[in-house]
């Protein structure tokens, strides 16, 4: 059923040919930020984590916010490919290669940050050779490398003439793997019995929902910016459809966030934590309500809720950017806010010590952390920009003309 003619037959693909000045300007900017990131890593390596804002209370800081966002978005960026190859939406097939490329770029950017924030990044070889299989972190090493392998295989079946018949199989494998990958990422937090913010099986489906939303937003943003860059035609109906999916994904993520908080509010022992996060947590409360909920969820839902949104490229672009911003906000609240609330060792008692027991832990990210995180983001950007310019991963056009000329099925509800 899914064995359609090879992609190259159905939609001619073409490298991006953007305005040289803007393109090389962007490349230069990304390269400079990445270089600053490398500098920050060298600085952190030399002095130790003392030059970061992280400490013995907030042990995972801003680099983890960037890394986890990128890894979660990587899984979601595969949405379009999965819809094309697994759920039979053939009109999306020409966009599947971009979907795969984004997925790889986001994952690599995230993993670089995660690796370089280790206390001993020079011991990567140890991480690759010593495994404790009870650790979800150890599983994740396999989930990440397997994901890269499957997405590369998937891209190969799409771009190699004559390999198209294997695309559905590779697509299905990549789809199943990405569900496992994000379940694994969520479980990094879900399996932490010690902390009130985590310790919940809900973290896994929550992260899957978040990945759908973040990945779709990154995909839409890159697609629109790229198509604008060399005036590439793309069907409004197709974009409207993706925008509607984005709204559904935001709603799904919000649903899990709601259930997470309702569960905590039901358990008396978590009331203090919920009060901290939702009411008097200062910066975390602000980032939650304004960043995650208002700017990152409600506003983009409203912006994308209109019927003709596919034709409004600027609105689509900004809404996607807001979802991404909201994603960073959510990761900040989840990762940093979750550690800021003190561990409860003696319920019903006030406790003090020299080790910040019983107090809200303070954290302010330092410049090297920002540079490391932004450096990883830039690596992702560089991979995307270079791939789009060097390889034919985007269709030459994906509008009515393309649908008329090729065997592609037009979206049913195209406007």
């Amino acid at each position: 059923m899914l064995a359609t003619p090879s992609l190259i037959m159905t939609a001619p693909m073409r490298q991006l040919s953007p305005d040289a000045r803007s393109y090389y300007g962007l490349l230069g900017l990304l390269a400079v930020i990445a270089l600053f990131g490398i500098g920050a890593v060298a600085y952190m390596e030399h002095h130790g984590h003392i030059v970061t804002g992280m400490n013995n209370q907030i042990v995972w800081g801003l680099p983890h916010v960037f890394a986890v966002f990128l890894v979660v978005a990587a899984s979601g960026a595969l949405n379009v490919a999965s819809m094309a190859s697994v759920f039979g939406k053939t009109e999306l097939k020409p966009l599947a290669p971009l979907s795969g490329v984004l997925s790889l770029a986001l994952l690599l950017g995230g993993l670089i940050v995660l690796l370089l924030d280790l206390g001993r990044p020079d011991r990567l070889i140890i991480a690759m050779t010593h495994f404790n299989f009870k650790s979800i972190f150890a599983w994740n090493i396999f989930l990440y490398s397997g994901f890269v392998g499957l997405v590369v295989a998937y891209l190969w079946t799409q771009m190699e003439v004559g390999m198209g018949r294997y695309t559905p199989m590779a697509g299905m494998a990549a789809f199943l793997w990405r569900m496992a990958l994000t379940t694994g990422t969520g479980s990094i937090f879900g399996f932490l019995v010690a902390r009130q913010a985590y310790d919940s099986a809900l973290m896994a489906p929550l992260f899957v929902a978040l990945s759908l939303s973040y990945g779709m937003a990154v995909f839409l943003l890159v697609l629109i910016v790229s198509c604008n860059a060399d005036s590439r035609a793309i069907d409004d109906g197709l974009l409207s459809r993706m925008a509607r999916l984005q709204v559904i994904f935001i709603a799904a993520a919000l649903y899990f966030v709601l259930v997470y908080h309702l569960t905590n509010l039901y358990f008396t022992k978590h009331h203090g934590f919920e009060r901290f996060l939702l009411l008097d947590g200062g910066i975390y409360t602000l980032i939650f309500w304004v960043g995650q909920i208002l700017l990152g969820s409600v506003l983009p839902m409203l912006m994308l809720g209109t019927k003709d949104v596919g034709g409004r490229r600027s609105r689509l672009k900004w809404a996607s950017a807001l979802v991404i911003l909201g994603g960073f906000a959510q990761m900040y609240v989840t990762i940093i806010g979750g550690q800021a609330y003190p561990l409860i060792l003696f319920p019903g008692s006030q406790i003090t010590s020299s080790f910040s027991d019983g107090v809200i832990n303070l954290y302010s990210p330092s410049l090297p952390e920002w540079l490391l995180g932004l450096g990883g983001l830039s690596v992702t950007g560089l991979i995307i920009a270079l791939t789009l310019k060097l390889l034919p991963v985007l269709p030459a056009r994906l509008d009515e003309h393309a649908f008329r000329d090729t065997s592609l099925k037009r979206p049913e509800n195209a406007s």
Partner: protein
Amino acid sequence: MTANRSSGHTQPAHERKGRRGFLGIAAAGVAGILLAPGVRLIEIAQAGQPKGGANPGVRWGMLIDSTACSSGCTDCVKACNTENGLTGGQSATDSQWIRKIEIKEVRTGKTQSLPVMCQHCAEPPCVDVCPTGASFKRADGIVLVDKHICIGCRYCMMACPYKARSFVHEPLTGQKPDVPRGKGTVEGCTMCVHRVDKGEMPACVLACKTAGHSAILFGDLNDPKSDIAKRVAQYASRQLREDLNLNTGVRYAGF
């Protein structure tokens, strides 16, 4: 190889052979120079290995009597710092393997003071989550970090319910030969394993005894004849975060 092949046509055979021979000897020499110290190190390392491992029949533990622990007294903390070469600094990035916690019950206003350190769980969450196996539990129940394979991911610090672990945030000086530490790795109370293996008691226990409090009792929880096992069997004692069912090696009495 390609270069050799392409240039081979223009060179006489004996010259090629000579060069090949030279390269062979050079390669062997370099390999020898690179490998010899490693081989020597293996010898040295193996020579230093203690005979026999930790005794699986033993479960080292501590019983802390909060009624004997004096508020404001930090002798155990100071002894730990001295024994293990810690600075004793109390900034957010300084290592603190043991800390005194002052407790005030909100409802009654009752105050208490007690030390908290690694609880040496029988089911340690830090060991479960460690990706490389650097966090491990010895056969005798002491939970340690192998500094050679810790990659500094800090997942164990996220997982520990007692906040018992510290990350080495800056370069170290003045390390104790018995207590290896490392910048960029995680560390915590070792129950003074280097002393225990010599038949001595941990530094904090000794300091508390010397100060006249004797609030910390150290011993083998598995040995029914030991003081600690008798006390645990006879009087009520508690584990911190009992709800997690981690079966801690450190127990508390009097609160």
